[in-house]
């Protein structure tokens, strides 16, 4: 019977092309608007590394001022000091660990045709690659010895390798960063986390780095971070003074492969801070945290309140479109009341007619959904054009495509329920008499 209902639904839609077009476009507009904002919202908040997001933890240590919290009501800083980064790396208590910070260096290509340019990099440790799993196209990362030796080595992004070496295997070649030559050990494949969760303080939706160098090398070269730096008291003068200060500017991530390892690491952090308290540091009560990736994204407000309101408004617009569709469907089904009466006289049960008309509403929904998807695609293109920082999240994925289709069918069926119910209440005798 479903095939018959589908056939009748399509037939009925062809009967009133203008009315049908109005209904489909109404739903498409609602779906397009709501799915555009929902897609951005969904990708902003979705798990960027689902296979291990519960094992990766940001380290938060509350070294802030006694007088006030880093952020009300009692949030610890979202970065750590150099002193803590160094101590935690030397302790090596996690399964994997990496301190890191953002650097911007001028890059001087050997190719004279390419002018020197400012390029974004990340100073970090070898475990960064094992923890966040960027795919390698050529070569691999540096090792612990090169971390310890402050080696002049680097890993390039796919885009930078393309720019400098035309995409060829450049491992073993040199690249000049801020007047110093670095040996290329590896080249990444295309890698762009939707949310740059390992450094949310410097922009959740920024592009991934163009190169990676050892943290120890950047420190030895006295390279100041190009990201956020927060201090609650002035640091002593000079580079060493800065490194010894309570200013927070380094992101610190650990991988802990079990709950037991997480508990152990938290105990280690608490013991470390208690030891520091004896030295007169960490004046606030113990407030260390180890949020995993999703907790970190939520705590850092990656999905802004504005985005939530926008999704709410777009769904309100979808409801307006649905109300409009209810009115049009009601008019359409009431115009068909004589046919409905006739079908009842010819033996159709109310439930058969109900299903038939819901299928018709569903056909409108699917059509509206497909056009809505095109509008969503256009909407996301517009978002990308207007907001460059949302380039990575203003995209359609399969989940959203299926959600759009499902939502539009559900919306159309929902809109069709009342008109269908009303149509099926028609007394056949009355309709047949008025023929």
């Amino acid at each position, binding site marked *: 019977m479903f095939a018959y209902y589908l056939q009748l639904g399509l037939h009925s839609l062809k009967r009133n092309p203008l009315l049908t077009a109005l209904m489909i476009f109404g739903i498409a507009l609602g779906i397009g608007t709501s799915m555009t904002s929902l897609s951005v919202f969904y990708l902003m908040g979705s798990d960027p590394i689902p296979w291990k997001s519960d094992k990766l933890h940001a380290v938060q240590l509350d070294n802030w001022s006694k007088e006030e919290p880093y952020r009300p009501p009692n949030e610890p800083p979202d970065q750590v000091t150099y002193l803590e980064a160094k101590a935690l790396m030397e302790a090596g208590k996690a399964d994997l660990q990496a301190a890191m910070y953002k650097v911007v260096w001028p890059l001087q290509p050997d190719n004279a045709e390419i002018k020197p340019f400012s390029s974004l990099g990340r100073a970090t440790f070898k475990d960064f690659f094992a923890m966040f799993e960027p795919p390698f196209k050529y070569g691999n990362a540096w090792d612990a010895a090169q971390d310890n030796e402050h080696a002049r080595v680097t890993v390039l992004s796919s885009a930078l390798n393309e720019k400098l070496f035309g995409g060829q295997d450049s491992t073993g070649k040199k690249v000049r960063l801020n007047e110093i030559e670095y040996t290329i050990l590896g080249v990444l494949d295309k890698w762009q986390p939707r949310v740059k969760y390992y450094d949310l303080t410097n922009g959740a939706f920024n592009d991934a780095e163009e190169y990676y160098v050892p943290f120890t090398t950047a420190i030895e070269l006295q390279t100041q971070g190009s990201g956020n730096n927060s201090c609650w008291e002035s640091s002593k003068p000079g580079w060493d003074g800065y490194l010894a200060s309570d200013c927070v500017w380094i992101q610190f991530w650990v991988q802990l492969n079990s709950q037991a390892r997480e508990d152990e690491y938290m105990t280690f952090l608490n013991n470390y801070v208690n030891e520091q308290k004896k030295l007169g540091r960490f004046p606030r009560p113990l407030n260390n945290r180890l949020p995993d990736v999703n907790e970190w994204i939520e705590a850092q407000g990656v999905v802004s309140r504005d985005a939530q309101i926008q999704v709410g408004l777009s769904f309100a617009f979808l409801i307006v479109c649905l109300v409009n569709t209810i009115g049009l469907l009601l008019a359409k089904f009431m115009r068909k009341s004589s046919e409905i009466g006739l079908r009842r006289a010819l033996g159709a049960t109310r439930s058969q007619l109900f299903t038939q008309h819901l299928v018709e509403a569903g056909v409108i929904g699917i059509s509206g959904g497909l056009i809505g998807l095109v509008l969503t695609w256009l909407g996301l293109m517009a978002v990308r054009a207007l907001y460059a920082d949302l380039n990575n999240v203003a995209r359609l994925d399969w989940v959203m495509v299926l959600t759009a289709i499902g939502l539009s069918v559900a919306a159309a069926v929902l809109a069709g329920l009342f008109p269908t119910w009303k149509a099926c209440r028609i*007394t056949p005798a009355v309709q*047949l008499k008025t023929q």
Partner: protein
Amino acid sequence: MLKMNHLSKVYRTHLIETHALRDFSIHVREGEFVAVTGPSGSGKTTFLNIAGLLEEFSGGEFWVDGVDVRGMNDDQRSRLRNEKIGFIFQGFNLIPDLNLFDNVDVPLRYRGFSAADRKRRIEETLSRVGLASRMKHYPAELSGGQQQRVAIARALAGSPRLLLADEPTGNLDSLMARGVMELLEEINRQGTTIIMVTHDPELAARAQRNVHVIDGQVTDFESEPQLRVPAAGNDANVAIA
């Protein structure tokens, strides 16, 4: 085939009550061709609607083919209507944007016949009414008489045991009316019970039995109806309660 005992139908509004049928009793036996006559507003169509299970009644008893209709829910009445009753309307009531094949197909779809069975039945009944060659035509491409023949084919396709006709020739000229009437007589000869509401005394006279309705009550009937001998050998006799 159809039996009503002391049936009543009252339409109520908050101001008035209208008794469309009162103490209405009739017994139509299998194979009969009964004409129901009466002035406008006498209750003929109400009777036909109740007989076709399109309207509920207010009181009394009612059986269709031995099945007590009282207490049946809407779905049960729809199934009974679909299996046992065929309708022919004065206004043909064909669906304009379906071709003849698909129009005749409508009741068969709800009956759940297989595609092959439906096709066979549609072709057979359209052949029977002389329109097999116009299966893919639309109602608007046919004359009134041809449209009524399609409506008859639609009513017959499911092999109903009872055919209810509401002024089946009311919208036709006399030539076409005669053709439709001859077709109904032929159908009746093959064993289908027919109840036909009509204003036309000439048509009524061609039925085996006339029932006259005034003010919602049966006032007159032929006491000794003459049965046609059905082609299928049906020898049922007829009585009016």
